[in-house]
């Protein structure tokens, strides 16, 4: 049951902030494909430049292997202060 977290405008686009995927995809690329299949607009937004991915709270680039306990967060451009 991988957990997916969306932040900023991504959760507005999706209409949700957090969901669990059961069964868990085994790779980040599979997880992206599954989310895009469910919601094409979200799939496009997740693939947009500037959207980073944190796997278990560590930034990752490219693909990655997921476990059933993985937390995958999609992070649009950040703006604090």
């Amino acid at each position, binding site marked *: 049951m991988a957990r997916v*977290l969306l*932040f*900023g*405008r991504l959760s*507005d686009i999706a209409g949700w902030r957090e969901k669990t995927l059961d069964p868990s995809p085994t790779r980040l690329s599979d997880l992206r494909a599954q989310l895009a299949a469910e919601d094409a607009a979200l799939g496009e937004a997740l693939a947009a430049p500037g959207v980073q991915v*944190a796997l278990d*709270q560590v930034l990752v680039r490219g693909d990655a292997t997921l476990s059933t306990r993985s937390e995958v*967060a999609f*992070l*649009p*451009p*950040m*703006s*604090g*202060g």
Partner: protein
Amino acid sequence: MISLTEQGFDPGPLLSGFCCGRAETGAVASFTGLARGEGGATKVLELEAYPGFTEAQIGAIAEAAKARFELHDLMIVHRIGKIAPGEPIVFVATAAAHRRAAFEACDYLMDYLKSRAPFWKKEHGPDGARWIEPRDEDHADIARWA
């Protein structure tokens, strides 16, 4: 000291506490970011963080500042949740022997908080809500430290 708070805060007591008992620190620089009303339009900012990850990333920014500048200490307090115009969003303070290191570290920390810290900022105005992303100036500002 790094903290996120959903409660409003007053930068003054933070600065007093930060300055107190520093017999060897000559210089304390601070920055307070306030929510702007933008010409009287009723606007509310809403700041979202990623609990745990946001603190860790700010911690990494703070460590980079300590490695780069000769600092005695630093403090970062960041508001999350809904923020009304005029309320403080962020407070950063830096302590050093001399003022150049204190100013530059404070400037550096703010540039990184603006475009590298995991916060997402939504502005609720009379015409609806919009997400705010770093401005061109913010990208130019952070490029100064490359």
